[in-house]
């Protein structure tokens, strides 16, 4: 199997707080992998370390872009990492509110296009061609996530669920081989969650983009992911296929148990 992301012994300290403690995780080509755990377990911090928002205190983050040499990306700038082919969404939605929906997606194309200031001013045939391609690709992505009818709305005017899908479309516009989704179903109703579920599977199957997903919605996680990693207090508690995780006593106690009690 072709490994795409290989995280070994990742550790992140905030002052005295060890938010991520020696976590290892790998993702293979074509997989949907979930990262679960109670609030404050360090999942988002893990994302931030792998995507370059934070520089991890220890450990290695290595990515293998398909058909290229592997790269160790610790401490690399986020934009470099995205350009290498690993894109993400945010738990607390981070769109560009005063730009249109289409423009938000077009921003994702930035690192795959090359027009510079002079080119933009002269607006020659190459620039025009690139611009046209950008618009078409972005529009196609909006169609995929079902937002094409809102293309010229301001992003801030979208309902919550649509904003989450727009974030996914924007991340996909960077042509990633691996997509990291931080709680994409947070705040969605069951119907929207179901649609999202289908969307994620479609992205993985049709686009061949592997996915690492942080999610609280157990049904969604169990449905679509091939492997699950469980974190608690910054540490990796368990990992394996959904069936195993479901029946792992430690996980039940730490996380699922809570759910089971409330259910």
């Amino acid at each position: 199997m072709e490994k795409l992301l290989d995280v070994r012994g990742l550790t992140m300290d905030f002052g005295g707080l060890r938010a991520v403690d020696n976590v290892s995780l790998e993702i293979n080509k074509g997989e949907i992998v979930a990262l679960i755990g109670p609030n404050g377990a360090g999942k988002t911090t893990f994302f931030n370390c792998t995507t370059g928002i934070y520089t991890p205190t220890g450990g290695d983050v290595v990515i293998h872009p398909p058909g290229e040499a592997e790269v160790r990306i610790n401490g690399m700038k986020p934009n470099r990492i995205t350009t290498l082919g690993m894109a993400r969404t945010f738990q607390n939605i981070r769109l560009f509110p005063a730009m249109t929906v289409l423009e938000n997606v077009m921003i994702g194309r930035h690192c795959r296009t090359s027009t510079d200031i002079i080119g933009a001013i002269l607006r020659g045939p190459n620039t025009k061609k690139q611009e046209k391609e950008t618009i078409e690709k972005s529009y196609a992505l909006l169609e995929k996530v079902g937002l094409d009818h809102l293309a010229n709305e301001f992003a801030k005017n979208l309902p919550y669920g649509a904003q989450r899908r727009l974030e996914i479309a924007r991340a996909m516009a960077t042509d990633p081989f691996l997509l990291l989704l931080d709680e994409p179903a947070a705040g969605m109703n069951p119907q929207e969650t179901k649609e999202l579920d289908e969307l994620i599977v479609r992205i993985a199957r049709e686009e061949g983009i592997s996915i690492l997903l942080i999610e609280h919605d157990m049904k969604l996680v169990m449905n679509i992911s091939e492997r699950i990693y469980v974190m608690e207090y910054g540490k990796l508690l368990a990992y394996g296929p959904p069936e195993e995780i479901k029946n792992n006593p430690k996980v039940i106690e730490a996380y699922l148990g809570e759910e089971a009690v409330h259910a």
Partner: protein
Amino acid sequence: MIASTIRKAVIAALWLAFLTFPLMVVKVNTLKDLVEWRWINLAWVLYSGFFASLVWQVLYQYRKTKKADDEDDPSLQGLSLGDRLMVSLKDPYVLVLLFALAYFVGLYPLVSFEFWRWSCKIALAVLAAKLAYKLFLVKKVRSCSAVMKESPLSKPILFAVLGIAVIYFPFSVDSYQVNIMVLALIYVVLGLGLNITVGLAGLLDLGYIAFFAVGAYTYGLLNTHFGLDFWICLPLGGLIGTFFGVLLGLPILRLRGDYLAIVTLGFGMIAHQVLTNWTDVFKGNLGIHKIERPGFFGMEMDLAQATTYTYFLVVLLVIGTIFVTNRLKDSRIGRAWMALREDEIACVAMGIDMARTKLSAYAFGAFWAGTVGVIFAARNTSINPNSFTFLESAIVLSIVVLGGMGSIFGVIIAALVMMLMPEYLRDIGEYRWLVFGAVMVLMMIFRPQGLIANQRRTYKYEGAKGEES
């Protein structure tokens, strides 16, 4: 509701009277050792304060309840005339006009009869027009911009009219007016340049005028020492401006918001201090004199001709700036600038190189300031540090904010108003700064998006149209 509004207005008026009492009412005559009590002023303050507070409350209420700008007023459709009148009376503009009318009517004992008659007449006419409009023209006339968009001819016609006006202007007024207009247009370019840095990329810059100074002194020094021509210095000014933009941009890459504002403020101050105190090079407060005006193939020009010539040069520069900004706005670069303004973290996470994007925005803004600085030096023929103080930076920033961040047309209007208003308000002397301040405060409260809100381009999807429908 009405009672509480009036009570608030009374309290506000009393409070205002109390605050301004020592200033407005008491006057100590130190020569005769007398205290003069100017009670008439108290009446003025109470009376005006009361009405000002009423207007304020209405507008404030309106701001809070305001919905999206609707083209037609559905609340008025299908109502009887009487009901319409009642609804109209709740309209904030009608209310404000009513207050204005009441204000002028009540002024009767305080002002001259002529003034009273005319102000009442004007207030009444405006009110009547507004009411008639509300009562009988329920369907609003389609907005100007909608008409503009629909008719294919309107744009060329508009440009033609505008072009003729711009060309005709210097020949229709004396060269003093033209000279003022040149200064206003210089500030248009400054506004558009800073609009890139602040309006598009969201990098607050309180020392922008330093780049303007760089351009002006580049030409001033090169021309007086080495006799370099205006036309050689024009691009040089822009380039050196850009160079300083990059130089100052580098250390502030990591800064944001307040910190950025303070550091750029410091840069502006430093620039001013260097110009003032490095007298060997910059001649301090004396400044540099006898800078040549722009030449035209060595043609001899008298003062009026030279002014007109400068006017057309700066018009060309304005057109160039508009053209370039417009192209950049809807390009890969412009979108990256806006994304940077909207959310830095999301921006880098989407693969945009923050350092490069910030630097380009900062340097590109500086480029225009440097370029137009050369024209400024050539227009004035002498420059000194007093043209490049914090006040000038603040004025350019106000132009951008008042015009509407990121909006080209808004910035042009704001620059013209800001620069021409003081000239034509000279009659009211120093009060013009008071008016200016009040306008700023009111704008920020009631129209924070600026005169003309920045509009985003809408894209039409052409490919695969067939499948879509």
